[in-house]
């Protein structure tokens, strides 16, 4: 019985991230619009967009190969798996040990790999520019992320997210420079990875500065729906990750019973509301930077992460 309950909770988390991801995107757009004194689209608009897209026919470019048509599903699957391994409302879920934080970062890397290939597949210059720039951002964002993972796992003596979260909510964490450094670095990486301001503008189309949109320019219909869905899942993943690590309170531990799960879920939703609001405020208060300034931005994140790791190599108390 216990294993069935565990599987149900794990399955519930997989469905939860699917359900919440478009909502988070819609909420962000709404808050951003309000901050700009616009009314903004309705909260549930992303769901309608997705539904509309999957009902439409797909227009595939003449030169597209099977990879172009398979990539949306592969990207979606990799990000979905990664997102359902990040603790949301509970830790120690039954499959949480099957991939640690390094593997989650690498899964996102797999998704990016196929997205960039899909950008190159049709052989248009816009797809190429997007893929090339995505692969310029990744070699800085990924090591920065690995360094953040190192900082956190040196502290918690584990790369397993459940143990990291348990450590961060425990009494030993205290005020540490390394944690502060990794928080700043993680936020910077999250902004870059999700193509948010100031790295990329999620609201633009057809502008030479764009990265993510240029890669998916040739996609339409259900393929585009999968890619948009994957993008909002990735945003949810990073928001969940930051709130699970740095706001670790109120999470249920697997097997505690229904009440704990309900409380965990409510706290999780509250965290998403708070984090989404802060992200929207940040995005509206900053201008987008030139594409070649991104390397300085991410280089800073990498250095912060490295500094955090170095401090912990010197002493675990820093």
């Amino acid at each position, binding site marked *: 019985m216990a294993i069935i309950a565990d599987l149900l909770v794990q399955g519930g988390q997989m469905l939860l991230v699917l359900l919440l991801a478009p909502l988070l995107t819609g909420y962000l757009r709404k808050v951003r619009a309000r901050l700009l004194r616009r009314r903004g689209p309705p909260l549930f608009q992303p769901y309608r967009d997705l539904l509309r897209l999957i009902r439409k026919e797909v227009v595939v470019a003449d030169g597209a190969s099977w990879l172009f048509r398979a990539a949306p599903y592969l990207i979606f699957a990799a990000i979905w798996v990664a997102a359902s391994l990040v603790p949301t409302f509970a830790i120690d879920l039954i499959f949480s040990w099957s991939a640690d934080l390094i593997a989650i970062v690498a899964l996102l890397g797999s998704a990016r790999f196929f997205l960039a290939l899909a950008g*190159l597949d049709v*052989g248009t210059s816009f797809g190429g520019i997007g893929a090339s720039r995505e692969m310029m951002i990744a070699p800085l964002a990924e090591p920065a992320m690995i360094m953040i993972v190192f900082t956190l796992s040196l502290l918690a003596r584990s790369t397993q997210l459940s143990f990291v979260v348990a450590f961060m909510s425990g009494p030993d964490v205290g005020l540490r420079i390394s944690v502060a450094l990794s928080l700043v670095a993680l936020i910077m990486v999250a902004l870059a990875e999700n193509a948010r301001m100031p790295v990329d503008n999620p609201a633009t189309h057809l502008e030479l500065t764009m990265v993510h949109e240029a890669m998916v320019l040739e996609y339409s219909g259900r393929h585009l729906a999968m890619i948009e869905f994957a993008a909002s899942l990735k945003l949810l993943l990073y928001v969940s990750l930051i709130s699970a690590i740095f706001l670790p309170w109120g999470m249920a531990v697997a097997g505690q019973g229904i009440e704990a799960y309900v409380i965990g879920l409510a706290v999780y939703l509250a965290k998403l509301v708070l984090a989404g609001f802060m992200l929207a405020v940040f995005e509206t208060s900053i201008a987008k930077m030139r594409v070649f300034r991104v390397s300085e931005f991410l280089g800073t994140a990498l250095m912060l992460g490295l500094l955090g790791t170095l401090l912990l190599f010197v002493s675990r108390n820093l």
Partner: protein
Amino acid sequence: MDLIAILALAAALLALGVLAILLTRLRVATPIVYGGSLVLTALALPLAIHHLLFAAGADEQVWLPLGLPWLGSHFHLDSLAAFFLIVVNLGAVAASLYALGYGRHEPAPGRVLPFYPAFLAGMNLVVVADDAFTFLLAWEFMSLSSWALVMARHREEGNARAGFVYLAMASFGTLALLLAFGLLAGSTGAYAFDQIRTSKHEALLASLAFALVILGAGSKAGLVPLHAWLPLAHPAAPSHVSALMSGVMTKVAVYGFVRIVLDLLGEPLWWWGMVVLALGGISSALGVLYALMEHDLKRLLAYHTVENIGIIFIGLGLALAFRSNALDLAAALALTAALFHVLNHSLFKSLLFFGSGAVLVATGQRDMERLGGLIHRMPYTAFAFLVGSTAISALPPLNGFVSEWLTFQSILVSPQLSQWALKFFVPAMAALLALAAALAAACFVKAFGVTFLGRPRTAEAAAAQEVDRFALGAMFGLSALCLLAGIFPGVVIDAISLVTQRLVGAQMPAQLGNAWLSIIPIAASRSSYNGLIVFAFIGLAVFASTYAIHRWASRAVRRSAAWDCGFPDPSPRTQYTAGSFAQPIRKEFGTLVFLARERVTMPLPGDSSPARLEVRMRDLIWEVFYEPIWGVVGFLADQLNKLQLLSIRKYLSLVFGVLVLILLVLALWQ
């Protein structure tokens, strides 16, 4: 028994080489030589596997009355040798199978066939050699036969230079190893490995030998800055030999390093680990940057070998550092990571070279700027190359990720090291490793994307044909192994544990008993990874999403011209090229590493001449390390050349003078 059988197979390979000389004019020579190599190495493979898994404790030794009369030839087979025999023969089986089809396209088979089995025999013999003389003989045999293979197409532009640089570097490496063995054998001339192992080495002497081994084995493996020959020589050989040189011969060099430093030298000093770590970190980052700047598919792959060798040496450096601190479990973890990467790299690098060979046969092109769109014409090759690219970019659930993950895990236990220098150094190397891993993904998006995706850039690329079944069989076999090693890593780790037990006296916890076949390097509370579950989850998610979409969504598909923002350009030349793809990375890293400079010349308004973009990059390692040596050697050769044109009187007086000098030295010596 295993050892004698392997020696017999090596002898049979040599005989096959001799037979190839006799048959060289016949058309049946190609299938006979490659088929024979395939059978012989396929026989050696189960012997090595059997010895590693079922007879790990029972070392075998054989003495044969060959070679130097007072020394003979010692051979042995222990778990380390067995592991590397598996790597060598697995690569050899795949390459021979591939060559059954690929070898038919060889313009001058007589220049390849005799050396190919000899090369395989040489690599097998290096691994089983048990004294310095046999080791060096086999090593040199391996070098020279591969040199002959590099020179197989010596009339092609650049190949003669590649062969010359390779020969110079190989001789230099062998010289360094010769001196290292000389130091270790001491004045008594104890050249057998058993004697070297048991004798006590002074710290200074051992350090000197260590430095020489770094030079000798490092130059063969391709550590920066000793890598210069590698991107020249590996691509010059026929593709199945390139695969062997890059995927397997560099691993034999790693074997030489591990055998001497971790086995023969005794207890390591702590700074050895630091030197190896530094070389590994620099090689991994520089190797991938060089690869990113490269447009030639085979040279890109060769430079990428430098990166992977760097990753292996990071693991080895960590193992040395842990061992000098008596942290045996951590040393076992780091060594397992390194050896796992040895196996992985031999699999996917061979696979990728096979793919590049297939592209070369189909189009006659190695330059990526003249390829493109091959996924339509060569779907199977494209799929196999994609699997190899994913594996080498360390993406889960394939095998490359597992060994990098293990390396990261061993870095995470390194705060236990007691030396401050190492404590500061290891995180920096970790950052370089993470950088290299991410750049590798960019590099293979470029390699696969520009070669196989997009639209064909030349008529040759548009008319490509899929390659033969043998080549496809070899590629798909290796792809399957990449996936299997990625989702069942516990099997490989448990096999490597038998090696680490011998070398560092510890092993990782047994993995095959873990629930759900996950791997747990230290303890479940520290880290765990399950390739099988990740693979199953991804498969399920793909299946579920595809099913749901096709069940409830529109299934209509319409083909039309590419949209491209409403301004599609019919010419394939407007596509992103390899150069333009790598331009942002060149701007970020290249200005520092290659002193890359771009100059744009725009015509004046009204002038209809084309604008020009010039890029200048400098290979600083070649300029700093090699050109001065090149210059000095050239100068000395010119000076000595004058001695050849003297009159007989001058020669006689020269001989007289030298004789007097030698006698004088002897007299003073006494």
